[in-house]
């Protein structure tokens, strides 16, 4: 009895010792030098491995940061300026401060305003349904509603609104890694600057059809009437292919374009409520808010 116990103890100990020796020798013999800075930088990075920076993960980005001379073009969108500042301190290289951005969904064509004309019965994936046809509605530019952007978000910053069938960005959680932008086959999601208190104004439509056709397909489509273009004091709005686009670089958030839009396709978020529109209804007065978005 004791013999067998002793035997096994001896066997395992010697086995452990021998393998330990082998591992030690191998690790010394085949030692690869790695810049300790890489590990240091990697510790600072957010470890989200989201690939928002363009590298395949945080480790790869750290290696790139250490190896590149001029890192002014590199930026970790998840960590933001804070992380990049720390990186700059560690490496002693200049970084360029960038305005924080946030994802916005440029489509408001929910079930209530954009009628379905066909039915799709395939895999629930925007990429596949976009390959097959232009979607269940008559708008071939709008959201397909199969949630590829939500599936790809690593930060739980998006969800599908059950009532409208459109994705919604939770601004506080969004790290602007850009995964949803790549996942969307319609390029609906855009990264826009996150101003103070997350104020944003953007055109919530990508429909390039002529006004009548666009309006028929979706009640809140941009019909290319150019009213916003005319009213903008900063020339921040461009009209291309019957579609208005507000350039965030020039937009001063004056909100002059919002009330002139006849189809309410310009979205403003997180602004204090303007004068409340009063709509006469048969009995009594109903109060209708001008604010359209609910992603605050």
């Amino acid at each position, binding site marked *: 009895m004791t013999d067998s116990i002793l035997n096994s103890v001896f066997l395992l100990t010697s086995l452990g010792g021998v393998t330990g020796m082998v591992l030690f020798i191998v690790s010394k013999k085949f030692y690869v030098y790695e810049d300790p800075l890489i590990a240091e930088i990697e510790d600072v990075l957010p470890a989200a491995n989201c690939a928002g920076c363009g590298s395949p993960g945080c480790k790869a980005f750290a290696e790139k940061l250490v190896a590149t001379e001029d890192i002014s073009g590199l930026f970790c969108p998840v960590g933001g300026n804070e992380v990049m500042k720390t990186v700059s301190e560690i490496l002693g290289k200049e970084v360029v401060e960038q305005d924080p951005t946030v994802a916005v969904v440029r489509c408001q064509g929910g079930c209530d305003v954009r009628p379905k*004309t066909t039915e799709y019965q395939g*895999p629930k994936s925007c990429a*596949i349904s976009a*390959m097959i046809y232009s979607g269940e509605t008559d708008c071939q530019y709008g959201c397909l509603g199969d949630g590829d952007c939500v599936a790809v978000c690593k930060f739980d910053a998006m969800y599908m609104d059950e009532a409208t069938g459109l994705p919604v960005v939770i601004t506080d959680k969004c790290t602007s890694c850009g995964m949803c932008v790549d996942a969307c086959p319609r390029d609906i999601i855009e990264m826009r600057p996150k101003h103070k208190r997350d104020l944003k104004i953007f055109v919530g439509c990508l429909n390039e059809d002529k006004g009548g056709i666009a309006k028929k397909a979706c009640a809140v489509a941009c019909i290319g009437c150019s009213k916003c273009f005319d009213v903008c004091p900063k020339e921040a709005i461009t009209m291309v292919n019957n579609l208005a686009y507000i350039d965030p670089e020039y937009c001063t958030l004056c909100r002059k374009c919002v009330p002139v839009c006849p189809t309410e396709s310009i979205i403003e978020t997180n602004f204090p409520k303007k004068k409340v529109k009063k709509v006469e209804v048969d009995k009594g007065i109903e109060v209708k808010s001008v604010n359209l978005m609910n992603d605050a």
Partner: protein
Amino acid sequence: MLKTFPKGGIHPPENKLTSSNSIKRMPVPKVVYVPIAQHIGIPSEIVVDRKDKVELGQVIAKSGGFVSSNIHSPVAGTVTKLDMIVDSSGYKKQCIVIRTDVKNETNFEEIDYPLKKEITLEPQEIVRRISDYGIVGLGGATFPSHVKLNVKEDKKLDCLLVNGVECEPYLTADHRLMLEKAEEILVGIRILMKALHLHRAVIGIENNKRDAIEVFKKLTADEKEIQVAALRVKYPQGSEKQLVKAILKREVPKNGLPLDVGVVVHNVGTIFAIYQAIQHQQPLIERVVTVTGKQLKEPSNFWVKIGTPIKDLVEEVGGLPEGTRKIVNGGPMMGKAIKNTDVPVTKGTSGILVIHEDEASRGEPKACIRCGDCVDVCPMGLEPHLLMNLSEKGLYEKAAQEDILTCIECGSCSYVCPSHRPLLDYIRFGKSIAKKMVTSKN
């Protein structure tokens, strides 16, 4: 024992409702919508403008490159606008809209030329004319035909295969054409043989079209160079690679073309169009379309002008029956559901299939039970269940290693799957991404 391809294949119900209905001529539509992207390759370039008067058969869009094709006006009339119209791809595409001139008699002349057997043109001239007259593969792939005829000198050809298989259920356009225009098709085959300097041609016809086989056997009884091969009925025998394997027992290399094993394959519809172009100077402005469906009042085969809206065709067969859920452009296996009936007929439209709601829905997808049926039926010897999973998980490189690019998208795997898994949807998607990855690497 009849010939067929050895690997995989399925036997969907044939439902050839219109095989005994002769081809009728569709009335000339009031307005035609001619898309400029009707073929594989580069879209054509529009050469007419609004308010231009166009003649019947005039070039209205010029070929945009080598793998491209001319497009001719199917009617004489006036170009009313250049507009974006939803075509069979489901997206709005550039279309030339032409209003038919009802007073112009050329629109209403019967296109029924007497048989002309003599081939006077030289081979190069033949290829040039096929290119000029906008001939593309009418089997469904719409590959510009002149590209197949421009054979490089290092390739040695020895056989022309004529594809009269029509393995898609419901469709009878090629079948009827073979019965009604057999002699013309034989002249067409001679034309191609002359253009390619070939001395052997084989017409492949599936055994469910016995009458067509009889007709061709009778006509080619004294011919040494043209043979008829009766084939066992099996889908997808109309695919080039499967047809080459079935008739000649030659294996087309993966990612290769029939050209690599010395064969050129043309559809009977294409060959008839070539006959018309060479012998009667008629460009490709009309084709045979089968309009079918179990609930339709009178499913029929029609000669249809390119650009005719599908709703005109549906009206012609008695309107949409109640409970219609889906309209497919093409056959039930390879065809594609259309978004609305304003979609025009293009060079690739071989049939319009109207499906009732009882048959239109796909089953609810369930988990894969590893039965291996998809592997059994895959005519390319792939593993569809694996490819689907790889594509779903985004492992496109691995999928490319598993030969996702050789998939011919016949849909046999989705057809047999007892769990109703959307195999082809995912494979097609993975294939498109893998293709991009491979081309960007090279």
